[in-house]
C-alpha cells in the first residue's frame, strides 16, 4: 500500500512533501506537545532519527491536533519546542488535519515506516512500553533494519498507544 502524499510546512515555514525524496526509507510519525505518551517516547524517536539518518532514512514528525482548543499544540508552540530541544528532523504542522485523516493516524505517537517506494511497511507504536526507555523504539528500528536489508518486516503492525489526535 502506497502512502498518501502530502505537502506540509515545518516550524520554519519550509514545506515538505513525502514524494520527491531519494530516501532509502522514511519514518513518519504523529506526535504533539502535550501528550504524556508522545513526550515519553519522543527522545527515543529522535534517537532513531539520528541513528538512521546516515543510512539514508528520512524522518518527519507531524502534529495534527486542533490548536484552537489546544493552543499548546499551535505552530508557534511547536517552533519553540523544536528550538529548545534541537530536533534532528522537521516537525510538520497539519493544520487542516487532512493528512492525519488520509493516513488513518489516530494517536500520538503513531508511527509509520515506508520503504524507498513509499510503501507502508510498519505501523504502530515505537516499542512495547512508554515507561521503559531501554525499549529504544525497537519496533521501529526492526522495521527499518528489515526495509534497509530488503527483507520482510517481521512485525508490520502493532497497536499505537497514546493520546487520541484532537480532532476539530
Amino acid at each position, binding site marked *: 500500500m502506497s502512502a498518501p502524499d502530502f505537502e506540509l510546512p515545518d516550524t520554519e515555514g519550509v514545506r515538505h512533501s513525502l514524494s520527491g525524496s531519494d530516501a532509502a526509507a522514511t519514518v513518519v510519525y504523529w506526535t504533539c506537545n*502535550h*501528550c*504524556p505518551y508522545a513526550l515519553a517516547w519522543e527522545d527515543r524517536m529522535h534517537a532513531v532519527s539520528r541513528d538512521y539518518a546516515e543510512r539514508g532514512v528520512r524522518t518527519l514528525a507531524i502534529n495534527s491536533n486542533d490548536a484552537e482548543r*489546544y493552543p499548546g499544540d499551535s505552530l508557534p508552540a511547536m517552533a519553540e519546542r523544536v528550538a529548545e530541544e534541537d530536533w534532528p528532523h522537521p516537525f510538520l504542522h497539519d493544520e487542516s488535519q487532512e493528512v492525519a485523516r488520509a493516513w488513518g493516524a489516530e494517536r500520538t505517537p503513531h508511527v509509520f515506516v515506508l520503504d524507498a517506494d513509499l510503501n507502508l511497511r510498519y505501523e504502530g507504536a515505537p516499542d512495547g512500553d512508554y*515507561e521503559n526507555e531501554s525499549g529504544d523504539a525497537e519496533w521501529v528500528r526492526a522495521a527499518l533494519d528489515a526495509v534497509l536489508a530488503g527483507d520482510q518486516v517481521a512485525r508490520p503492525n502493532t497497536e499505537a498507544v497514546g*493520546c487520541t489526535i484532537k480532532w476539530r
Partner: protein
Amino acid sequence: MEEAGLDPATIELREVETEDDAARESFPGSPTIRVDGVDVAEAGPTADSPLTCRVYRRRDGRPSPLPDPEDVRAALVSRA
C-alpha cells in the same frame, strides 16, 4: 490500598465527559487521582483543555501519563 490499610472497594471512579463537568470538578486532565479530595501529585504543565491526558513527572523527571507510584503510595499512607 491494602498495603496502606485501606479498602480498595472504596475507590470511586468518575468519568468526566464535558468541559462543563471538568470545570465543576476542577478536573485538570485524565487521569486525576484524589485521596479524600486531595490530588496525589502536583499537576504537570497545564493542558489547554482538561479533556485530554495529563502530564505527570516521575520522581526521576521522566514525563508519564501516570503519577509516580511512590507519590500514590505516599498519598494513601498519609490518609490512612
